[in-house]
């Protein structure tokens, strides 16, 4: 079963829907199992999304030819001007 959702918001929303449907408890067993399986996948996806981004700080530098490039930003260098 391919996960249809791609972004966190949609995933969270469908997970909520699935849980609500399962909690209502009036589903056929096959359907319930199917939803459960999808719910597990979506919750894994959500967790992955939560873990995904790495903490990184970069600054943009304008190069001589006018393009912009990214370089690591030292957090300690800031200060001075308020």
């Amino acid at each position, binding site marked *: 079963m391919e996960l249809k959702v791609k972004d966190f918001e949609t995933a*969270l929303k469908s997970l909520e829907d699935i849980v609500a449907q*399962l*909690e209502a408890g009036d589903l056929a067993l096959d359907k*319930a199992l199917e939803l459960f399986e999808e719910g597990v996948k979506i*919750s894994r996806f959500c967790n992955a999304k939560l873990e995904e981004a790495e903490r990184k*700080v970069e*600054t943009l530098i304008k190069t001589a030819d006018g393009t912009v490039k*990214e370089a690591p930003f030292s957090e300690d260098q800031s200060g001075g001007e308020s």
Partner: protein
Amino acid sequence: MDLFEQRKVYTVFEITSEIKQTLDKLGVLWIQGEISNFKHHTSGHMYFSLKDDRAQIKAACFRNSNLYLKFRPEDGLEVIARGRISVYEPRGDYQIIVEYMEPKGLGSLQLAYEQLKEKLRKEGLFDDAHKVALPLLPHKIGIVTSPTGAAIRDMLRILKRRNASLHVLLYPAKVQGAGAAEEIAAGVRYFNTRKDIDVIIVGRGGGSIEDLWAFNEEVVARAIYRSEIPIISAVGHEVDFTIADFVADLRAPTPSAAAEMVSGARDELSATVVSLQGRLARAMRRGIERRRLELERLARSRAFSITPNMIRDFQQRFDEATLRMIQAVRKLTTETRHYREMLHTRLVKVDLRQIIGRRREIVARNWQHLISSVKARLQKEHSRLELAAGRLDALSPLAILQRGYAICKDERGAILRDAATVSPGDRVAVNLAKGGLDCRVEDVKT
């Protein structure tokens, strides 16, 4: 003629130049007055008059000067203008060339702020309908601020403390002084050219209204308005409201608060996901448990539990019945045979003459009985007849005549019951018990 020789005659140009020189000597001066007849020419120059209750003077503020005005001049506005008096020679007009002016009373920045705010509000730049929600879980945020300012330091400190797994991209921009607004706007536009930025934060730390001024500039407001990416405005302190704050999708009271906004949701979301996972598993377990119990209950129910027994019972009963049936059939066969044999034996043994004789006796006895009962019956009917005849006799009209009554009939033979039906002279017949009388009516008594 002397008068004429002594007199100095100027040409128009000469006198105009003279006037111009005289006025030039006044140098730079300040004039207070009310703007009227204001026109902002397409060339960018401004033409207007300054007046008070007794006089007015023409004024011009050329493009290169009015570009730096912090407010928009308009009719009725009381201003203090700085400039030089100049003569426009082709027309002989004199006017003040305004280099700088500010509104009287309200600070010029304050006025400019109010004016721009009103203008943009009318244009709909602050409309809630235009504002978009921040993504629940931003991954990459673009920050437009000074790389050396307090704002970026505060934001990074918050993000670090919250252990937010965010990718921060800083667009270094001047946040005050000439060109700051342009740089800030360029930063917003730059992030919009990328596809990977979830949220933009524009901001700076606290300062005076002049320090924060770049965030009140129209160019920044328009760049924020046009941004496709949600923007948080985080300028100065809680009490500072800039135009950028009104246009942005979300206003953070401070840069630190903006950092909280983009990182704060993660913990909550994590908790939400964990909770949903729990509920998912519980719901499924409950669902299965419920079905298992239902199954058990059904299995225990009479409908199901009896079945095997019933089948056994039926089997047994069937077996018994079969056995009994076989036995019964066998017994019946035997009995029938015995009975037939017995009958046969008895039949063979029977004396027919004796049977006939006995039957004859019965017939004879019954015959006698029949005769006597018929006789008795006849006797009974006879006496009933006699009785009935006696009673009939008593009712007979003859018997009545016998008692002395007579029947009187008219000539047609109809019985007379009323004297009025006959008249004197009519003939009537009278029947007596024995014989009759033909009579003539003498008189009728009614």
